[in-house]
């Protein structure tokens, strides 16, 4: 049995008196593509943000290769579990290329040439090579998200955390971003994807986690979750979503 990359162990997160996450536990193994689904406010994004340490957990443990992330060097850990945001969060003052270089230079201390080549390699992968000298404000939402994915990939992370990567996009741009993520899933990269795209979740994931009210209701293969969910709440959610 291989040691999981990330193990979330009885994670609790409160905002003031509001319990957002109540006792969340699951494991992420190397190569896993896990989709996290559930309605807004179910705690999906908060959980992802806790894993990236953007939110401080209230209780429980998050283990990275068996070690509590509290004891790890924050910058080093984050560069291995990078996040892709709903709002892209590209650095507005930098070109597309620079966006993909800066993290490698500052955090991984790679030399200029190596960082540039790595950035170009991944920008090509996401089809953004022609736009390397553009500034983020000159790009469409779908293009920005593809750059954000290249920026994350350039760090050579062990796991990428996607926080609703297509929720801020116009419908016609969702496809281009999903196809990039789909091709990454095929390449063996470990990914956690919070998403509202059910077809996508069913097609690319090895596992689907359904969250509701701050707890994991069901954690199973996409076949089970979408085919014959065991829990009535999962069934209810999917019926509501898929009938739209």
């Amino acid at each position: 049995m291989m040691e999981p990359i990330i193990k979330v162990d009885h994670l609790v997160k409160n905002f003031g008196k509001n319990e957002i996450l109540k006792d969340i536990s699951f494991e992420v193994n190397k190569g896993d593509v896990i989709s996290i689904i559930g309605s807004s406010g179910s705690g999906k994004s908060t959980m992802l943000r806790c894993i990236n340490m953007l939110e401080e957990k209230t209780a429980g443990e998050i283990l990275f290769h068996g070690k509590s992330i509290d004891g790890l060097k924050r910058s080093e850990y984050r560069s291995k579990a990078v996040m892709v945001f709903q709002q892209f969060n590209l650095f507005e003052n930098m070109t597309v290329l620079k966006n993909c270089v800066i993290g490698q230079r500052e955090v991984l201390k790679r030399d200029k040439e190596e960082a540039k080549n790595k950035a170009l390699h991944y920008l090509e992968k996401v089809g953004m090579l022609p736009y390397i000298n553009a500034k983020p404000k000159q790009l469409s939402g779908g293009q920005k998200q593809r750059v954000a994915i290249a920026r994350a990939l350039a760090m050579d992370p062990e796991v990428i955390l996607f926080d609703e990567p297509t929720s801020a996009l116009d419908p016609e741009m969702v496809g281009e971003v999903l196809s990039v993520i789909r091709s990454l899933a095929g390449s063996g990269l470990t990914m956690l994807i919070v998403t509202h795209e059910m077809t996508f979740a069913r097609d690319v994931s090895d596992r689907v986690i359904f969250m509701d009210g701050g707890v994991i209701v069901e954690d199973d293969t996409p076949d089970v979750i979408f085919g014959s969910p065991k829990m009535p709440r999962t069934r209810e959610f999917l019926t509501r979503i898929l009938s739209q």
Partner: protein
Amino acid sequence: MFFESVANIWNKYGGSIMGGVGNTMLIALIGTVMGLLIGLINGIIRTVPKSKNGFIRFIQSLINFIITAYVEIFRGTPMMVQAMLIFWGYAFASGGVTLPLIPSGIFIVSINTGAYITEIVRGGIISIDRGQFEGAASLGMNHFQTMTRVVIPQVMRNILPSVSNEFVINIKDTSVLNVIGVTELYYYANSAAKQSYKTFEAFAIACVIYFVLTFSITRLLRLVERLLEGKKNYTIFGSQTDPAAEIHVKEDE
């Protein structure tokens, strides 16, 4: 009659007045740049995330308190009084030794401007989208890297109009430094007035010079702001459909 006596004063005192212009601009320019530096450093210090360690958190609060006190005191008192207090305060403490005048002037204008720009920078940092901080943090960049590489460059562009404004204010306000005897524009205009008994004419000259300085600087800075906004367009290199198309990497580091 009026123009004749203005011409006379100019012929006699024009050289020293222009020397005063040099000092005025020197003090205002260096003072504003140093003030900006103080403001940016304070901005970076004030936004450091609160530590979990109790002792470090106490030190952080203490430093933040000192910065706030600095801002409030220097914004809440006239620069003229600050000049007297600092210059003669040093003389008092050192037993009569006074500091050289021009560096004293630069020092006084710097810390005074620093107090104002600290607040301008604070507003500038607040106006930057939280996503910029999170984007940097998520890649593993620390606070200093995030601030110097991502946030401050964006803040700089946003606050430039306010900082330009501080510079223009400083050109005018260096005139108060004459109370400690700094030989700037006002000082020479005043001595020309005293020596020639033509007070109105002498200060008419000073007034015109101040206006020409501030007006041309304002226009110049407006131009710089426009240049900093950058081009609206960009060049596409290569092609998404034709892999043979050439890719050029613009070296901008």
